[in-house]
Structures are given as structure tokens and as C-alpha cells.
């Protein structure tokens, strides 16, 4: 679902004979409406983050992002992503390999299961781990008697983050690997290549850009997740606060400029994500046109 669909704008499709396109005036009006809509809905919020962040000057900005609480939130956010993203990468590759290279019953059902976290509200994604591991949860008493705390601590934040980001890499790889089929891998196998050799020498070069984009998308969500993490974090300042939670706290304390300053860091992360996506599409288009020639 989210971000799973990547499209490539081909200049081919926009060249259309006159009788199956609209008159120039209609085209201009439609383009203008679309641009105004996007400017109002998407661009304006983006610009406002930076304007608000620098409203009180650069010193306030720098103070906000070098504040010890902000730095500890940044550290926690990075730590969570470093654990969650590799786990989901491993899952994504496994699931995509099984689904795209083999035939089995219930494949569509398995894909639906992978999509599940997309359909679940972030708040519920946090709630389920409270129900499992919280003080009143199913495993709560046992964990408590062994002195293990999962929720309102790092493990809970990691679990909730892993949950919400499960589908990203798998959903990016499945259509890509399905489209590529199994011919190249089968050829490699018939020439005597072993499992990992096939994957690294044949499959990986074909999917590396899609995989990179999946990882970047997964990472963006992992670092930006708010609802699920908010439920399981316990909001202990300097300890279990991630960057998005830190933004919320600053905002609720009416430290708007500081809050937007920290938010601008996450906007940069979004930019990196979009740049990698553009790079990936460019690479794929190059590959596609190279194949045609």
C-alpha cells in the first residue's frame, strides 16, 4: 500500500495526438487547478515548518536542536531505526523471495497479511503491545517477576516501530521481483550456482534500487512514527522520547519555534527519502531504456 506503488513518468505517454487530448485552454486550467491544490495542501505546510523554525532567529534554532533532550531523542530515534530497519529488510527479502519465485496456495492471502499493519491505526499498533507485555498484559506478570520491562522502554518502542514498518520493504520488492520472473535465477541454478550465489549475483543486482528505496521508506516511517510509539513510550524525557514525541512535548509547552526547529530535522529526512526515490526511478528508467536498445 503506502509507497508500494512506484510509477515512472514516461514522456511517451504525454505525447498524444490532438484528437484524443483536450484543447489547450482546458489543459492549462486543469494544470493550474492541480498545482494550486498541491501548493495549498502539500507545499504550504512544508514551507511553514522552516518559516516557523527560524521565526525567532538562528540562535533559537540552534539551541533547540542541540538541547540535551533533543539530542537524546535523536539518539533514541536513530537507535530504534537501526534495529527495526534491518529486521524488516530481512523479512522483506525473505517474503519477497518466497512469494515471487515460488508458486503456492494462499499467496494472495499472505500478501494481505503483510499489508495488515498498513490498515491498523498507529494507536492500535501500540495498544497491542501494551496488551501483550504491559503490567496488566498477558505476559506482564511473568515479565515483571523476572524484572524485564518491555513497554514504556526501548524494546516496546522498537516492537511498535517494527510492527508499523513491516510491509514497506516487502511491498516494494514483491511487484519488482514478480515482474522479473524466475528465468535468470533458474539459468543460474542450472549452471550450478548455489542459493546465496544466486541471490547475490543474479537477484540482488536486479533489485538493489527497489530494495534501497524500500529501506529508505521504511527508515523514514521508523524515524517518524508517532502514534504507535506514543502509546508504548511512556514519554520519559531524555529516556524514552523519540524525535516526533519530543516535537509534541515542545509544542504542547508552547515552545513553537523549538518544536518546528526539531521538526525541520525530520523534514530533511523526508527530503532525503524523496531524493533517493527520484534517483531510483532515474536508474530504473535508464535500465529499461537500455534493455529496449
Amino acid at each position: 500500500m503506502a509507497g508500494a506503488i512506484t510509477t515512472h513518468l514516461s514522456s511517451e505517454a504525454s505525447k498524444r495526438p490532438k484528437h484524443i487530448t483536450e484543447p489547450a485552454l482546458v489543459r492549462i486550467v486543469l494544470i493550474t487547478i492541480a498545482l494550486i491544490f498541491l501548493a495549498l495542501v502539500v507545499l504550504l505546510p512544508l514551507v511553514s515548518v522552516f518559516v516557523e523554525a527560524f521565526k525567532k532567529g538562528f540562535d533559537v534554532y540552534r539551541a533547540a536542536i542541540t538541547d540535551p533532550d533533543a539530542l537524546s531523542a535523536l539518539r533514541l530515534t536513530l537507535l530504534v531505526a537501526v534495529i527495526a530497519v534491518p529486521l524488516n529488510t530481512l523479512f522483506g527479502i525473505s517474503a519477497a523471495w518466497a512469494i515471487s519465485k515460488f508458486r503456492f496456495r494462499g499467496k494472495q492471502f499472505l500478501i494481505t497479511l503483510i499489508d495488515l499493519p498498513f490498515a491498523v491505526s498507529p494507536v492500535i499498533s501500540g495498544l497491542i503491545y501494551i496488551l501483550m507485555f504491559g503490567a496488566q498484559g498477558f505476559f506482564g506478570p511473568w515479565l515483571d517477576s523476572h524484572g524485564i520491562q518491555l513497554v514504556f522502554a526501548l524494546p516496546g518502542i522498537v516492537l511498535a516501530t517494527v510492527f508499523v514498518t513491516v510491509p514497506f520493504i516487502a511491498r516494494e520488492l514483491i511487484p519488482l521481483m514478480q515482474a522479473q520472473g524466475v528465468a535468470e535465477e533458474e539459468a543460474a541454478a542450472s549452471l550450478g550456482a548455489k542459493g546465496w550465489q544466486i541471490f547475490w549475483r543474479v537477484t540482488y543486482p536486479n533489485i538493489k534500487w527497489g530494495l534501497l528505496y524500500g529501506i529508505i521508506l521504511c527508515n523514514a516511517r521508523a524515524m517518524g512514527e508517532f502514534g504507535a510509539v506514543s502509546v508504548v513510550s511512556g514519554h520519559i524525557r531524555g529516556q524514552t522520547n523519540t524525535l516526533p514525541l519530543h516535537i509534541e512535548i515542545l509544542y504542547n509547552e508552547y515552545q513553537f519555534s523549538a518544536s518546528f526547529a526539531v521538526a525541520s530535522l525530520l523534514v530533511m529526512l523526508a527530503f532525503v527519502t524523496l531524493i533517493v526515490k527520484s534517483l531510483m526511478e532515474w536508474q530504473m528508467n535508464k535500465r529499461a531504456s537500455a534493455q529496449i536498445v
Partner: protein
Amino acid sequence: MKGSSRSKGRSRGGKARNVLPGFGLSMGFAIVYLSLIVLIPLASVFIKTTGLSFAEFWGTVTNPRVLASYRISFFTAFSAAAVNMVFGLLIAWVLVRYRFPGKKFIDSLVDLPFALPTAVAGIALTAIYAPNGWMGKLLQPLGLKVAYTPLGITIALIFIGIPFVVRTVQPVLQDLNKEIEEAAVMLGAYRMRTFWKVILPELMPALLTGFALAFARGIGEYGSVVFISGNMPMKTEIAPLLIMTKLEQFDYAGATAIALVMLVVSFLLLLFINFMQWRINRRVVEGG
């Protein structure tokens, strides 16, 4: 092929009649991982609810404040998805069919709501639409209050949902056969008529999928909404926030009951989406 897969040493994926290795390992890992991370934790919502008597469950989910939160969540998510269906189609149309400067940039901009953390979107939209914000200042004299009203929630959900519609419609529009449009022209149809009678029906499954994706996301959305909604019980309190409130009051049973209803709706939407997606794919396969 069948023969070679039976040959010794290469039949580890034997069940799948395939020469490639690793089926057992990759499938096994995927299933165990999904079970541990997704399925078992999700099942806890259902198990926890069985601890309630039916009267308790019914009492919780039909409480006026809970019903009001469902109404607000569904109504705003539905309105936002409807708006996105129209503008999403327009944006996809313009991106696929017309040429204009800055098209690549606009195309990337559509993805921004996917990439931007929801809390950031939430505070930014609130700053814009608050009475002293850029848009708030313009709309205030017109008597339009956006922030801290259902309209504000809807605007946040439009932001969150727009990429879903654009990215679902775009590939279908791109693959649409020129021939059928040509045929319509040949048969004397005007442009508008071609759009309504030929193009729109072809796009309908994708549009509905996009709508359902945006709707599903909107019902559950939390981060971008809590800041702009104002969170007044009965008026602008969304269902996910009510779950949060119940959790903070340690009313786990109440929170779980509300969550169960939302989960069931989400599952139904997901089934619908996957069914539509399957139909679109089948169409593409048959058509090409």
C-alpha cells in the same frame, strides 16, 4: 522443467515444483516473523475483548462519547477521501497526460505526505490554519474556522491521503489503451462523453482502491490530526485519540473494545482493497 526439479540436490523447493532453492527457509522465516510481530499481537485485541461480557462490550462501544468519536472519524475520513478521489484523479491526469515545466518536481511533491512524519504535518497544518496562521487569517473574515473543527481534521486527512489516490490511478491511466479512446472518437463521441463513458469506467477500480486506501488510513490516522483537531469530546475527538485517553486512564478493556470495532472495519476495507487490486491486475494481464 518438472523433470529437472526432481533431480537430486536441486529439489529443496520441491513442493513448489521449482529449481530454485530457499523456499522453506524464506517462507518459514516470513511466516514466523509475521506471526510473532503482527498476528499474535493483533490477536491480543480479540482475546482481551473476550474477557468482557457482551453487555460490557456493547455498553462501551455504544457510549455516546465513543459513538460521537466514530462518527467524527468516519465522517472526516470519508469526506477527505472523497475530495482526494476528485483531486487525486486530476493530479494523476495532469501528470500522465500533459507536459509542463517542473513536472518531475510536482511528481515528487505528491510523495511528500508518505515521507513526512505525521507529527510534523500535524503541527505545520495547525500553524497554518490556526486563527493567526497564514490561511486562518484569510479564512477567519469569511466566517470559516478550520483549526479545532471537523473541517481541520478533514484538511489534515486530505494531506495524508492524497498520494494514495494519485499513486493508484497513475499507473492505470498510463497503461490505458489509446485505441479505445480513438475508437470512441471514431464513433463520434465528444471529449467529455469519451471521458465519462470510456475512460472513467476503466479507471473506476483504481479510483475506488485509492479511495479505500485513503479512507482506511484516515480512520486510523493520529499524528497529523491530534494537533489540529482540538480534541473536544463529542465534537472533535477522533476514535484513535479516545483509545489513547482510555489507555492513559488505565481503562484497558474500554480501549480494547473501541479498538476492536476499528480493527474489524479496517480488515473489511483491506479485504476490499486487495480484491480490487486483484481485479485490476487480472484486467491488466488479460488486456496485455
